[in-house]
């Protein structure tokens, strides 16, 4: 385990002991295994074309703009690499795998306690007879959420991030390998409850869905703008509690549109089922399109 951040604690449920997943690769004992496995050929699929053009060594571009042989061994290397490039490489591979298999993947993000798991359980009950579903559950510890999902009869895999505050694309790749979602299925990825960090990490999903419950503040889209900017959809959950809360729905939607003019908004209650039909219809349409695209590719 890494003594710096403890990230070696992260594990994917069902992994063998030696297959302990180290989502961050700074674990000193295993070096860069995954970098070498796949080389850099996947760079082509992603939006980092500059990877190919750089890496030149430029002498004479040092701090003083000169290079005098013998005076200093220092040199400047221009690399222009995206810090998230490695994560984005994995995300691109996940996206390609999902497209090949016609899987419609959603990354559910929210604060803890917004009702993500209850939403998923009700969704699973409503859709499981119509098409295959699978769930990846991200939490720091415990498999409580995956247990709740499995109780509905659909496959779920728990990923514990240890001290990590978000799922990254490498963890999701490992989880997809083990879970092996069926062709033309819907894959829900329930991220760690956190409105900050998961915004930065693409997992390969079709959409991020941000869930905000009306028992939270209507100003959250402005307080945590990165997440609402990254999300394609905002679900206002627990609307059955609106009569008991001072939550201004229209104001909340206006705030969300301010950080993301294109965000789709759904209002529902995962407990009472109010507004749920629209959510289910949206998922079914997304799955239909993903499946149709797979047929076209195939």
């Amino acid at each position, binding site marked *: 385990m890494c003594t*710096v*951040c403890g*990230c070696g604690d992260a594990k994917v449920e069902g992994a063998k002991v030696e297959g302990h997943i180290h989502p*961050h*690769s*700074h674990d*000193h004992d295993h070096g*860069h295994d995954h*970098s070498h496995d796949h080389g850099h050929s996947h760079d082509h699929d992603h939006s980092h074309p500059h990877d190919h053009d750089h*890496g030149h*060594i430029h002498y004479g*571009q*040092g*701090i003083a703009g000169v290079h005098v042989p013998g005076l*200093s*061994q*220092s*040199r*400047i*290397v*221009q*690399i*222009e*690499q*995206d*810090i*998230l*490039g*490695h*994560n984005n490489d994995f995300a691109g591979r996940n996206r390609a795998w999902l497209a090949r298999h016609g899987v419609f993947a959603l990354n559910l993000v929210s604060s803890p306690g917004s009702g993500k798991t209850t939403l998923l359980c009700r969704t699973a009950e409503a859709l499981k007879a119509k098409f295959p579903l699978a769930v990846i559950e991200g939490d720091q510890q415990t498999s409580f959420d995956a247990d709740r999902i499995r109780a509905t009869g659909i496959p779920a895999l728990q990923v514990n991030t240890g001290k*990590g*505050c*978000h799922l*990254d694309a490498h963890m999701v790749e490992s989880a997809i390998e083990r879970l092996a979602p069926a062709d033309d299925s819907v894959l829900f990825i329930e991220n760690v409850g956190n409105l*900050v*960090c998961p*915004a*930065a*990490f693409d997992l390969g999903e079709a959409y991020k869905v941000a869930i905000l419950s009306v028992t939270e503040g209507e100003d959250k889209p*402005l307080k945590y*703008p*990165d997440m609402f*900017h990254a999300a394609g959809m905002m679900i206002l959950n627990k609307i059955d509690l609106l009569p008991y809360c001072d939550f201004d729905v229209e104001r909340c939607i206006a705030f969300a*549109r*301010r*950080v993301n*003019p294109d965000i789709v908004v759904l209002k529902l209650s995962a407990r009472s089922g109010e507004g749920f039909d629209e959510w289910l219809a949206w998922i079914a349409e997304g799955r239909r399109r993903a499946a149709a695209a797979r047929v076209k590719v195939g």
Partner: protein
Amino acid sequence: MHEMSLTEGVVRILEDQAATHGFTRVKTIWLEIGELSTVVPESMEFCFGAVAKGSPLTEGARLEIIRIPGTAWCMDCSGSVVVASRIDLCPQCGGAKLAVTTGEEMRIKELEVE
């Protein structure tokens, strides 16, 4: 605290580059961090200090952060404007339909190595 993950990403890139370009020590790293990115530079510096100590490649390396200001295209008044955050409205017309053009960068620009 995802700055820790991002910092580890930086060190991974340094290790890869060291193998490619044949250097053994990094003295300075210039990072471009946009004002609208999800990174707090101070937090990144703190994390880097902790992570860099673990390897002879990065021990003692200096992190230089270059802030890239946020700019956006306002769809209402069709102009390029400077924004300090994602929740800013257009400083010219007060509109909210802003498409960010710069300020989301998170990348390693160059390295001083030996």
